[in-house]
C-alpha cells in the first residue's frame, strides 16, 4: 500500500495560555510519498518529530494540518482501528497477563461482523504469523518469560496478524542489547521482504536505519533534511546536519574558507575549488576519506593509533578541526608510512563535503556537482524517491529556544518541581552515605 503524506504538520500547543511562543512545532510541513512494499526508516535525533510522524500515520495522534493517504484513500480523519495498520511500540506493550498466543489472537478477537473469523481460522492465522516470526514454540508462555528479542517478535506478530496494509515500528530495537539488535534488524528485514507490507520504522540509530531501509528519511526539528537510498544520502549529504548525523565514526568537520578558487583548512590549501565564490565554509571529511601520503596537503598531529585489524584508525589533532580529534581510517598496510608525530593526508574528493558556514548548505566543488547531477538523473529515471531540504534550515538556535520553553513550562508544573526536589534529595542522600 502506497502511503502519501502531504504537508503533514503537528503543533503541540503551549501549556500556558499567556505564552503563545511556547508552542512546539513537532512536525513541520512533512511531504513524503512512500512506495508500496518498501521499508522506510525515519531517522533523526530525539525530539525531531519522527515518532510524532509515526503516530500521526497510525492515527493515535491527530495532525494539526496536512493529509495522509493510504493508496487513494484519505485516512487523515480515520480512527486508528479503521486504517488497517499494525503498530509495534517501543516497549512492545504486550499484555503481561496473556500468553503469547492470546496476545497474538487479541486483535483477531476484536473483529466484528462479516470480518469475524471462526476459532479455527483465528488459530491458523495466529500459528502462521508465529511461524513467520519464529516464536511458534513459545505460544503458551507469558511475555515475562521471554527474552527481549522474543518479546519484540511477539509484538511484530501481533501487529501482523490482522494483515495490516501498513506496518509501523516505533524504535523497534532500542530495548535490545547490541548483539540482539543486529539479529533482530535482519529479522525485521526478512519479515518485511516475506510479507511485502509497506513498513515505516522510527529510529535514532543511523547505522540501523542505513542497514535495513530501502529509503531513509533524515529529520531535524520536525523538518525533512534529506530523503533517499541510504548510500546516496551518505555519499551526497545535502547539508552539514545530514553529513554529521550519518556515519560511524562520525564525519570530521573543519573550519575553512574558499579563497580564489582554492579550499583552505587553516593555512593549508587542501583542494582546488574552481568557480566557487569566496566564502567561509565548514569542511566535512569522512574518516575513510584520508590518504596517507608524504606529499599530503593536510597536516595533523598524531595523538594515538587504534588498531582494528584490517584497518587502522589514526587519532590526530588539527587546529581547524571542530571535533576534539580528527579520526581517519586507513589500511593497516600503510601503518609503516607514519613516522614521527605528524601525519600528512591527501583527501578523496568524493569523501569531502563543503558547506557554507552561514546556511550550512552544501557547496559542490570540483567534479562533485557533475556526480550529484548524474545521481539525481539516475534516481529520477528509476522512479526512486529522493529529496533534499531547500530553504533555510532550522537552526540549533531554535532548538535552544525550544529547550528553554520546555524548561519554563516544566517550572510551572507542580509535579516536576516535586520530582526535581526528590531527585535532589536522592543526590543528597547518596552523598551522605558516602561520607
Amino acid at each position: 500500500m502506497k502511503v502519501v503524506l502531504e504537508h503533514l504538520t503537528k503543533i503541540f500547543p503551549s501549556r500556558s495560555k499567556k505564552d503563545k511562543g511556547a508552542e512546539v512545532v513537532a512536525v513541520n510541513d512533512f511531504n513524503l510519498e512512500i512506495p508500496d512494499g518498501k521499508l522506510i526508516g525515519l531517522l533523526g535525533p530525539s525530539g525531531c518529530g519522527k515518532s510524532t510522524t509515526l503516530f500521526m500515520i497510525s492515527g493515535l495522534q491527530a495532525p494539526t494540518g496536512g493529509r495522509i493517504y493510504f493508496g487513494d484513500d484519505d485516512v487523515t480523519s480515520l480512527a486508528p482501528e479503521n486504517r488497517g495498520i499494525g503498530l509495534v511500540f517501543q516497549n512492545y506493550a504486550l499484555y503481561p497477563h496473556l500468553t503469547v498466543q492470546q496476545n497474538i489472537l487479541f486483535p483477531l478477537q476484536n473483529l466484528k461482523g462479516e470480518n469475524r473469523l471462526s476459532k479455527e481460522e483465528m488459530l491458523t492465522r495466529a500459528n502462521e504469523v508465529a511461524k513467520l516470526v519464529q516464536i511458534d514454540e513459545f505460544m503458551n508462555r507469558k511475555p515475562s518469560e521471554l527474552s527481549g528479542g522474543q518479546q519484540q517478535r511477539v509484538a511484530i506478530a501481533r501487529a501482523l496478524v490482522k494483515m495490516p496494509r501498513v506496518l509501523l515500528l516505533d524504535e523497534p530495537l532500542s530495548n535490545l542489547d547490541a548483539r540482539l539488535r543486529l539479529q533482530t534488524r535482519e529479522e525485521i528485514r526478512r519479515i518485511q521482504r516475506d510479507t511485502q507490507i509497506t513498513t515505516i520504522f522510527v529510529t535514532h540509530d543511523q547505522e540501523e536505519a542505513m542497514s535495513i531501509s530501502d529509503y531513509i528519511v533524515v529529520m531535524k526539528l520536525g523538518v525533512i533534511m534529506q530523503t533517499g537510498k541510504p548510500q546516496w544520502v551518505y555519499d551526497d549529504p545535502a547539508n552539514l546536519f545530514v553529513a554529521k548525523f550519518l556515519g560511524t565514526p562520525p564525519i570530521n568537520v573543519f573550519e575553512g574558507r574558499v579563497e580564489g578558487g582554492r579550499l583552505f583548512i587553516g593555512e593549508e590549501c587542501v583542494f582546488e575549488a574552481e568557480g566557487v565564490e569566496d566564502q567561509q565554509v565548514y569542511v566535512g571529511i569522512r574518516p575513510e576519506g584520508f590518504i596517507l601520503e608524504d606529499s599530503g596537503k593536510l597536516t595533523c598531529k598524531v595523538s594515538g593509533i587504534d588498531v582494528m585489524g584490517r584497518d587502522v584508525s589514526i587519532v590526530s589533532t588539527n587546529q581547524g578541526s571542530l571535533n576534539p580529534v580528527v579520526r581517519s581510517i586507513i589500511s593497516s598496510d600503510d601503518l609503516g608510512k607514519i613516522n614521527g608525530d605528524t601525519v600528512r593526508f591527501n583527501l578523496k574528493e568524493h569523501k569531502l563535503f563543503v558547506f557554507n558556514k552561514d546556511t550550512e548548505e552544501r557547496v559542490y566543488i570540483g567534479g562533485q556537482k557533475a556526480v550529484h547531477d548524474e545521481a539525481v538523473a539516475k534516481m529520477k529515471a528509476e522512479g526512486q524517491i529522493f529529496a533534499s531540504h531547500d530553504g533555510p534550515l532550522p537552526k540549533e538556535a531554535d532548538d535552544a529556544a525550544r529547550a528553554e520553553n520546555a524548561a519554563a513550562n516544566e517550572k510551572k508544573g507542580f509535579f516536576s518541581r516535586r520530582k526535581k526536589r526528590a531527585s535532589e534529595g536522592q543526590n543528597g542522600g547518596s552523598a551522605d552515605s558516602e561520607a
Partner: protein
Amino acid sequence: MEKRKNQWKAWIYLLPALVILLIFTVWPIINTVRMAFLEDYNALAEVGGTVFHFGFGNFTRVFNPYGGFLIALVNTVLLTVITVPISTMLALLIAVALNSIKPLRKIYQTIFFLPYVTNSIAIGMVFSAMFSIIGGGQGVRPDSWGLINSIIRAFGGDPINWVNSTINWGDGILARSRFANMCVLVIYIVWNALPFKILVLLGGLQNVNKQYYDAARVDGTSRARIFWRITVPLLSPMIAYVVITGFIGGFKEYTSVVGIFTDKMGPVGANIYTPKDNLNTMVGYIYQSLAASEGYASAAALILFVIIFAVTMVNMYVSKKRVHY
C-alpha cells in the same frame, strides 16, 4: 565489625517501637488466647480470688443459641458478603471514570475522599437523621418524614420505616423492618468503604502503561473488552488487595451500627434479644460480653480471629489463581 555495630544501632532505633508493640499488641493477643481457655476467671483470681482452671467452657457459652452470638455472626457475614462486592465494583467504576476525565478530576477526587477523613460516628448520626422519621406515634402524625422518606414521597412512594421503632400514627402502622434496617447499614458501609478503595484502584490505574490502551485502540478493541480484558487483569493485584482488606474490615464492622442505631445495636425501643431486631455484629457482641466476663469475650474474639484468618486464606488462594503476575 562495621556490620555488627550497625546492627546494634538498628536494634536501638527499633527498641521503642518494639517495646510498645510487645506491650500493647503482642501480649494482649497472647493473653486473649489464654483467657479464652480460662473458666470462671475474674480479674481478682490471680491474687487469690476464685479458683480458675483451663477448659472449653467459654466457647460452649459463646455458642449458646440464646446468647446472641449466632445472630451477630449471621449479621456480620451478611453485611460483609453484600457490601464488599458492591463497594469494590463501584470503586472500580468510579476509579476508571475518574482516570478517564481531566477537568475537575482533582475536585471529584476530593469529594470521593471526604468520607475517609470524616468521623464514622458523625456520618452515622447524619445517616440516622436522613433516614429517620421524627415525631409521630401513638396516633400522632410525624413532624417530619426525614430527607429520604420526603424524597420517596415526592416521587409518590410510600414512606419506609428505615431506622425507627414501629410507628403507629393513626392512619396506619409503619412496622419495623429488618430488611430496611439492613439496607441503611449496607448503604452506609459501602459509602464509607469507597474512598479507600477508589484511592488504591486509582493509584493502580495511573501505574498502568498508557501504551496498552494505545495498542488496544489500534486493534479496535471495544470499551467493554478493554475494561474486562485489559484494565481488570492489570489491576487484579490491587483488586485482590482491596477485596481482602474489605473482607477483614467487614468482619470487624461495628461503628456503622453504633453510629446509626446507637450502642443498643438495634432500632430505638427494639428488643435486642430477638433476632428480628438485633443488628449486633461480632465486634459489638465481643464488646458487650466484656461486661459479663473477660474470658467469654476472649473466646468470642478468638473465634472471630479464626473466621477472619480462614476467610483471608480462602481469599489469598482464590486471588493466587486469578491475579496475574
